[in-house]
């Protein structure tokens, strides 16, 4: 019996077939079946660029906009879940309330996918320093740091507002607020390395495109993709 991190009910984790015959240590589930089911996987027809679920078509309207702005150089984003109300509640509890332990729920949702990816560098999208002081942790690194090894090459200027407080239009108009943290040691191969940018939610793409702009200005040869748990 375990206690679900979200609803606090006791639950019996299902035993996977592979688990019985494997000698490896399996990660114990942190949430119950009912809570897990509240999170909706992205399925069906999806935007070939950013993974957004769509009725029809190949590229979503957001990506068409980026296509124009960046002359076709779109950012490929993988995402796993739809940003529904269950996810909203989870993110409010994790980010706004600062319930640090909930990073384990986000890890549970992204672990299988992320641990199988093969990039040279995993770069987390930074949160504003002010928020980080208040929360006493970095929301993105706290989730992904246990799954892959992070290179926190990006930093965020003080005083920039969180994207979550803005509407769609304001988000798109947000000015660049990232810069390269020169104190981070990097290897020679980063110039042409394969990089995965890590964020939690992809809403308009503004943040991730800014992060890519910032990296590209310093490392033009870098190959950059991105990952967000939600789209």
């Amino acid at each position, binding site marked *: 019996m375990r206690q679900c991190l979200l609803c606090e009910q006791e639950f019996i984790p299902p035993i996977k077939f592979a688990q019985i015959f494997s000698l490896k240590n399996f990660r114990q589930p942190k949430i119950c079946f*009912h809570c897990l089911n509240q999170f909706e996987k992205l399925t069906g027809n999806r935007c070939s660029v950013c993974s957004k679920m769509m009725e029809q078509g190949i590229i979503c309207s957001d990506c068409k906009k980026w296509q124009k702005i960046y002359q076709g150089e779109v950012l490929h984003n993988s995402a796993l879940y739809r940003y529904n*109300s269950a996810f909203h509640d989870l993110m409010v*509890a994790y980010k706004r*309330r*600062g*319930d*640090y*332990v909930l990073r384990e729920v986000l890890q549970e949702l992204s672990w299988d996918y992320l641990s199988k990816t093969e990039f040279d560098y995993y770069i987390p999208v930074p949160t504003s320093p002010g928020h980080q002081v208040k929360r*006493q*942790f970095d929301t993105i690194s*706290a989730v992904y740091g246990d799954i892959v090894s992070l290179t926190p090459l990006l930093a965020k200027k003080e005083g920039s507002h969180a994207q979550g407080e803005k509407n769609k239009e304001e988000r798109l108009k947000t000015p660049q607020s990232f810069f390269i943290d020169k104190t981070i040691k990097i290897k020679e191969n980063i110039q042409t390395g394969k990089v995965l940018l890590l964020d939690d939610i992809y809403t308009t793409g503004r943040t991730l495109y800014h992060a890519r702009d910032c990296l590209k200005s310093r490392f033009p040869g870098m190959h950059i993709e991105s990952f967000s748990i939600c789209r």
Partner: protein
Amino acid sequence: MEDLTLLSGRQWIINQKDSSTLEDCSKVPVIENGLCNRCGSKVECKLPSGKLYCRACIGLGRANEGDILVRCQNASQFSKLPNGGMTWNGQLTTLQQKISDNLVLNFKQKKSSLVHAVTGAGKTEMLFQLIAECMKNGKRACIATPRIDVVNELFPRFEAAFAEIEIGKYHGREYQEPNLDQLTICTTHQLLKFYEAFDLLVIDEVDSFPYVGNDQLHFAAKNAVKKDGVRVYLTATPTEDLLEEVKQGKIEILKLNRRFHGGLLPVPREKLFIKPFLNKKGQIHANLLAEVKKVVKSEHPLLIFVPRIEQIPIYLAALKKKLKDNNVKIVGVHAQDSQRIEKVAAFRERKYDILLTTTILERGVTFKNVWVIIVAADDPIYTAASLVQIAGRVGRAKEDKTGLVLYCYHRYTKNIRSSIKQIKGMNK
């Protein structure tokens, strides 16, 4: 946090770096010896710094190890209105009057009470004179209940009964600036924000979720009353811990076995089903459907209880399909439903004929003339107490004392038997 008079009786957290001097306030570390001083919970989760933080009361702002809990304890002053600000002039029945008098007497003697009254006994009215007594002396009272729906239901009734008193209403779904109200009506969760604030604390529906068995809320309730304050518990099914306090002589039990209209509790009808309520094709059992149709025909609003949240959409679809020709409006609601309040209100206004739900609606909420069908009354999720509560929804109005409570079951359980025995016992 400027005007401290408005915060009297409240407690809140400040950062240690926050060096503001707060007069008339006591200060304690919020996390002490692995326990949270705000909610009493054991604190186990850590931030990356290694500092503990309390998850249990995080909704009120995270309590971190090292933070300070400020408790504002300046004496609150209220005017002493001659009649306690009561504008209600209704009549109590002889039995209600007896309880009401006892409550007033116990309050004067600083004795706590447990009112064990059947559902529909008119508990709210029995509180009016007690509250008036408290107000009359310029003292402060709070009525807390575990459920938001009940807060929303009680507030207008007290507003009407105490037109001259400032009443505060607080629950998690509505932001309300903290105010110094002589009478506070709130959820039991809100009690976490108070410390030795009330001369009288009434807890309604003590036996219902999430208060029952919740140490955090019990801790909060204990902290919220003054050291010499009085507690009053209201319930239709007293819990073991309260009965234990009665036995130890800490609280006095007051019983009321009659509903205010003098009617009896409807004794549930039982119906045995052999085949499943829903077959593999998702079709509803013909006999169950027939029962539903009978209620619809009688023009009574119908509450249908199913054991689990996941079953609500399935039953909803099955019923909608079968009843679409009858022009019946059905809606489902569950605890995590963001539109819960709106749906319940719409059902009350008869915008829906049938409300499909789980046990969340078992207590405290009244619907005029409602009838009830419990699907799978043999499911372990229904305790005898919750079955009694559900049955208590029915026959509450003066002009409509009887009504249908139908248990649909496959297996006759101890809980079914015991609930019927309890109901018959209360009718004697």
